[in-house]
């Protein structure tokens, strides 16, 4: 049975945890990016009007997911955008991705809070017992 891709948030005192689960590492990375958007707004409200290419590289999967989320935080902040869909490929220590989204619309998105950065707290990337992949960490808001 294949593992369903999904994302969720988990509690962390002052901030918030983001988690992605999927059948592959790539899928878990795509899902955690949706969880990141979910901190700010419902990803389903984001129209897919602009594609942004993102690349990053890190020596471990854990550092890679933090870099990936921080690259998205940077793109969102400098382009004033939100993203609703992601396509990730990972080869070795290198991640390449496309993120689709649109400019922030305060009325339609009602964005709750901006994200300062992804942290190493509760940071985990790996295979689970059911064979699926999990990626998670806490983000500072």
């Amino acid at each position: 049975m294949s593992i369903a891709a999904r994302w969720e948030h988990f509690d962390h005192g002052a901030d918030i945890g983001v988690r992605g689960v999927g059948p592959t590492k790539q899928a878990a990375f795509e899902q955690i990016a949706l969880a990141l958007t979910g901190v700010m707004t419902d990803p389903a409200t984001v129209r897919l009007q602009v594609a942004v290419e993102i690349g990053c590289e890190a020596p471990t999967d854990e550092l890679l997911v933090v870099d990936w989320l921080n690259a998205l935080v940077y793109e969102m902040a400098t382009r004033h955008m939100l993203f609703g869909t992601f396509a990730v490929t990972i080869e070795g220590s290198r991640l390449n991705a496309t993120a689709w989204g649109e400019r922030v619309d305060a009325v339609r998105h009602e964005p709750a809070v901006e994200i300062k950065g992804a942290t190493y707290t509760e940071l985990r990337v790996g295979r689970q017992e059911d064979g699926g992949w999990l990626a998670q960490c806490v983000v500072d808001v």
Partner: protein
Amino acid sequence: MDLSLLTRKSDIEWWIEPHGRMRVPGIIYATEALAREMDAKVYQQVTNVAMLPGIERASYAMPDAHWGYGFPIGGVAAFDADRGGVVSAGGVGFDISCGVRTLCTGLTFQDIELLKKPLAHELSRSVPAGVGSVGRLHLDDREMDAMLAGGARWAVERGYGTAADLERIEEHGCMAGAKPEEVSAHAKKRQRDEMGTLGSGNHYLEVQQVVKVFDPAVASAFHLRERDIVVSIHCGSRGLGHQIGTEFLKQMAVSAKDYGIDLPDRELACAPIDSPLGEAYLGAMRSAINCALANRQIITHLVRKAFAQIVPTAELSLLYDVSHNTCKVESHQIDGGVKRLFVHRKGATRAFGPGHPDLPAAFSSIGQPVLIGGTMGTASYILVGSLDSLARSFGSSCHGAGRSMSRHQALKQWSGRQVIDELASRGILIRSPSPRGVAEEAPGAYKDVAAVVDAADRAGLSRTVARLEPIVCIKG
């Protein structure tokens, strides 16, 4: 927190005795109730900080301490460069120089009672807040570097505020030792459109009323009387500080081993003060302090213009501007001598008492104002620094209420509309582009700020001067 792990030194002081790799004790200032409420992670984080090289005296936690990144939020620790001491990006945090400034207005509640709505409207129109908002000021590369080197002094030179404001800001409005060349192009780009913006989350702009004076003599010296109206601004170094924190956290985590530092927690990422990486971080971090000071200075200018539109008789003068996420070089008494230490305050406010040489003349005989932010439905406090705080916590006190409930839980419990309506019925006007953001910041999601302030007072970290309650709150 399991109190059986602590040695009770008094009603308000708890020690984690040195064990394992701890070089100094952990000292937590809290009432029994606050200590019991603290997350178990605070114990671990205070302990971990005590393991860092070159730490002096103790690893401290203020009464509002809670689970942070590496350091607890509400953590204070000082390091000696001559003993291999470190500077830690985790010990300053992502929102470098986040802080509070309070302005006196010369108005009383009666003066603005009927003008609350237009004032709230004008302030929310004037000060950009929330996700995706941009400032009206866009800096080119040259101006960006001038801002990072000059701080609030740069802002005043560009017409935002007056020279008199600078005397009422820590470091006289300009952090020395900033090196804009150590700030990455990414960090600068992230800041380009964000000057004069409030941000989101727990950041706010509030019009507040002084509802109670606890110390009339100090309140009088601060020009505060009951029913007076003040304005408080809580925000930090915006995207630039966040990006610097992100980049150096990674660099320090990756290179710690090369410096022979065995990190008890990756997020305690640090480098020797005298190392190239440590010096680069200090130069970038001080630039971010200047960014925060410039940002609050620009917002002050926008607030003054908004008041001039609605209440032309208002005269907004700066009481003080404090930062609560910093690392600063200060002289402290250690073992009978004076040492130059790198004092990290992560979610802790400097609280120098009377006679401290770093204070502006206006406060030299009284002690500095310590500005404590609360929630949009409860209260904020003004305290005064105490002489005892130097020996107790390197001259530090608490910084705010601290959350008692996660954003997730708060969202399940309240809707933004419900919070806004309930506060409106109590005479508090909330203006925010995000109802969800308001729900996540609901007053009920925070600890009792009065208990935190009382504990800081009883521990001798600072003394309570006045209680402020919100009338208008602009949230991101």
